[in-house]
């Protein structure tokens, strides 16, 4: 992501190259409803859009500023609550704001809180910051139940998004209208958050993350840089919360709590903190897993936990990291050296996954399903979960998969080493 190459030549071509990703994103965002027509699918996509803004705003802290926060949902939730109150005030009569602009109310409200909490908590980074964010998160989440006139107690605050004034011809009765609004704000937020990384502040946030000791000697107060970055990140989290309010028309205390904060951390980390687009991937994947996977299997939490642990152990740079290590290889036209290795490793990996999956599903069926005695269905095959055959098959699959995976991974590693060497030579 380097914006500083001054390219001469065909301007149209270079513009397309430069903005291709954005144009593509816009086409995808606005084109998806042509493919996904069900209202459930659109709800899912709407949630994905909200999650993308939220995760990107979180990465402004973790990835760009080196601040690990356990309380980011505070701003998401506050933004949401402020927005729903604003919606109710507008419905009450006197305040003529079109619905399309209402998310900004959440954003700027969250910004104010972000300035205050940011100033309090960013004096120190690292574990101290993490723990302060955790503490503040707990405090705000607890007070949500104690201050029912703002947070609405357990039932939360609800409102009606069908306002009198709108800027567009949408009336926001149907999910599709709301989806377009979310897609619009998602793209706007994405562009702004990307541009922010290209400003002096964005670079200074990187500098503070990389080396807070050195930063004062280029003339900056570390605390102030962090506070501004933190506040701006809250702004976008607030916008995400505002869209949440419009999408669901209800805000409950769960939006502000630790689970939501943990969620956004996982999304961002699984997606990859090192690249701008990482959190987008994470938000898409995790939202899908949480909502659709839970309809397929009750063991989804276990799969999710395993995925997360696997990423932490073997892919600390997330999905984006996995993709981006291949960029130089592709550029050097060496992919053909890797592909056989991947193909070879994919087979035992699948076998291993299948074995683990069968084992997990059998166990869930036996211990947590409605009726353990009923036969199980997997891949259209009906079988008895207590039968030793099923157990035997899964264990054999696991053992075979594991043994061969180890071997193929070794080969894969060797071809990687080879490739790095070739590329090094090429570079020199």
């Amino acid at each position, binding site marked *: 992501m380097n914006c500083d190459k001054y390219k001469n030549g065909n301007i149209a071509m270079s513009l397309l190259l430069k903005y*291709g*990703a954005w144009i*593509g994103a816009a086409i*995808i965002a606005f084109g*998806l409803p042509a*493919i*996904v*027509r*069900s*209202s*459930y*699918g659109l*709800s*899912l996509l709407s*949630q994905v859009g909200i999650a993308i803004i939220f995760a990107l705003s979180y990465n402004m802290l973790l990835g760009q500023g080196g601040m690990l926060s356990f309380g980011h949902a505070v701003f998401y939730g506050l933004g949401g609550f402020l927005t729903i109150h604003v919606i109710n005030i507008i419905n009450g009569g006197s305040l003529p704001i079109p619905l399309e602009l209402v998310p900004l109310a959440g954003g700027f409200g969250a910004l104010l809180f972000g300035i205050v909490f940011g100033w309090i908590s960013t004096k120190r980074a690292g574990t101290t910051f993490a723990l302060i964010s955790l503490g503040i998160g707990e405090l705000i989440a*607890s007070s949500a*139940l*104690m201050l*029912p006139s703002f947070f609405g*107690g*357990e*039932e*939360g605050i*609800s409102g*009606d998004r*069908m306002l009198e004034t709108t800027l567009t011809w949408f009336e926001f*009765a*149907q*999910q599709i209208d709301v989806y377009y609004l979310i897609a619009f704000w998602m793209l706007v937020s994405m562009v702004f958050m990307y541009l922010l990384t290209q400003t002096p502040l964005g670079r200074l946030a990187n500098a503070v993350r990389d080396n807070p000791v050195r930063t004062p000697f280029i003339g900056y107060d570390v605390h102030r840089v962090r506070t501004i970055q933190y506040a701006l990140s809250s702004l976008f989290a607030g916008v995400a919360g505002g869209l*949440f309010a419009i999408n*669901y*028309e*209800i805000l*409950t*205390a*769960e*939006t502000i709590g630790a689970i939501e904060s943990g969620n956004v951390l996982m999304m961002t980390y699984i997606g990859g903190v090192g690249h701008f687009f990482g959190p987008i991937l994470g938000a898409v994947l995790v939202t899908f897993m*949480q*909502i659709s996977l*839970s*309809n397929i299997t*009750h063991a*989804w*939490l276990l799969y999710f936990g395993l995925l997360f642990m696997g990423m932490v152990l073997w892919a600390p740079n997330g999905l984006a990291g996995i*993709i981006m290590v*291949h*960029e130089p290889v*592709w*550029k050097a036209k060496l992919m053909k050296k890797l592909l056989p290795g991947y193909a070879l490793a994919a087979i035992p990996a699948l076998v291993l996954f299948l074995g683990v999956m069968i084992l997990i599903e059998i166990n869930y069926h036996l211990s*947590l399903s*409605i*009726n353990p005695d009923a036969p199980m269905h997997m891949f259209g095959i009906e079988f008895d979960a207590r039968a030793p055959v099923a157990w035997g098959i899964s264990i054999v699959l696991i053992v075979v998969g594991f043994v061969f995976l180890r071997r193929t991974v070794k080969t894969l590693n060797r071809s990687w080493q080879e490739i790095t060497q070739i590329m090094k030579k090429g570079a020199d």
Partner: protein
Amino acid sequence: MTFRKLCFILAGIAILSFAAGPATAADTIKLAYIDPLSGGFANVGDAGQKHFQYMADIINGRGGVLGKKIEIVPFDNKISAKESLIQLKNAIDQGIVFITQGNGSSVAGALIEAINKHNKRNPENPVLYFNYAAVTPAFTEEKCSFWHFRFDAHVDMKIAAITDYIKGRSDIKKIYLINQDYVFGHAVRDAAISMLKEKRPDIEIVGNTLHPLIKVKDFSPYIAKIQASGADAVITGNWGADQSLLVKSGKDSGLDVEWYTFYGGGLGSPAAIGAAGEGRLKQVTEWHNALSTEENQPADEKFYLGYQEKYSDGGRAPYYYGRIRTMMEMFVLALEKAGKAEPTAVAFALEDMQYDTPYGTVTMRGFDHQLIQPLYISTMTKVGTQGVKYDVENTGLGWKTDGRVEAEDTAMPSPCVMKRPKK
């Protein structure tokens, strides 16, 4: 081809492969069950699903209704309002028009709001919501909705039953109120204070404490306060760990009080409380597992044992929601009366419907959609003593009836003003 292009192509393929539509509805009458099926509250959600499945088994065994079978379709909402709304959309997309849910007033409130809006915005395609356990009074009072039916007694009704029972207990002179510090706890407290004042003005309320929800690990300080107040009885709406820890902590300090609870028999609570509740823990419910023997209802006993055999996980998760049976039977009657599985017609059919349970007649009040049913106060008692035949959750302890409160005595006035669609 650039690396970027490759990534875009792959992403495109991924998106297209996702675009599969939902399965079309088969020829069954579907009831969407939206409750937590994973995470911390999954045990409660699982148990509810088993109750519904058991009832569906029975109804389908009789040949179903309107010539169709009933199908329970579970949706996992992880007890989150947000996820519930997404799952509601999911259910509607699958052509399901009957929804049921019970756990969490936050979820129930969100569903009522969402269903009201959905039905207003899509009048040709309405859905109907049966609430089997969310007890916030407002749902059938200020916030009442034509599309919502409640089959559980709400907070004020349960407190009315408890206070009715206490009215006859002249040995209780001092009462302590301890509740969770959120809307539900406040409702329990307020109702208890006003009804006690009305029914037993001589009783002194010696303490009134709110504590934070779920956060308290050690209840001994609260027990010390109760101890110091000299209370004879405690009324609490606490559920889950807040209830178990409270009662257990009371036993450890030798606190000699009666515990009047809403959820003493709630799933997992008897096992968690165990012997600490013997002879002290009381609950207010529409049903418990000793009723069939106490009132000599062998058919109900058979019903209970059938569930225990098939779905109770070796007795660890026993039959609990008597009202789910009532609800499903009334649902079947309403379907038959309406003659079609159409929400508006079913809703009108349910209004003012009466149904005879083994333990008396219940009425779905037409003007606010609140079920009026008799309630029982029962005490946790050792199996084999005082006619208690079955235990709960393999604890060796069961329930024994202390008193019955007739349906009409639990009925509360309601300020409900309902907007009805045209018939």
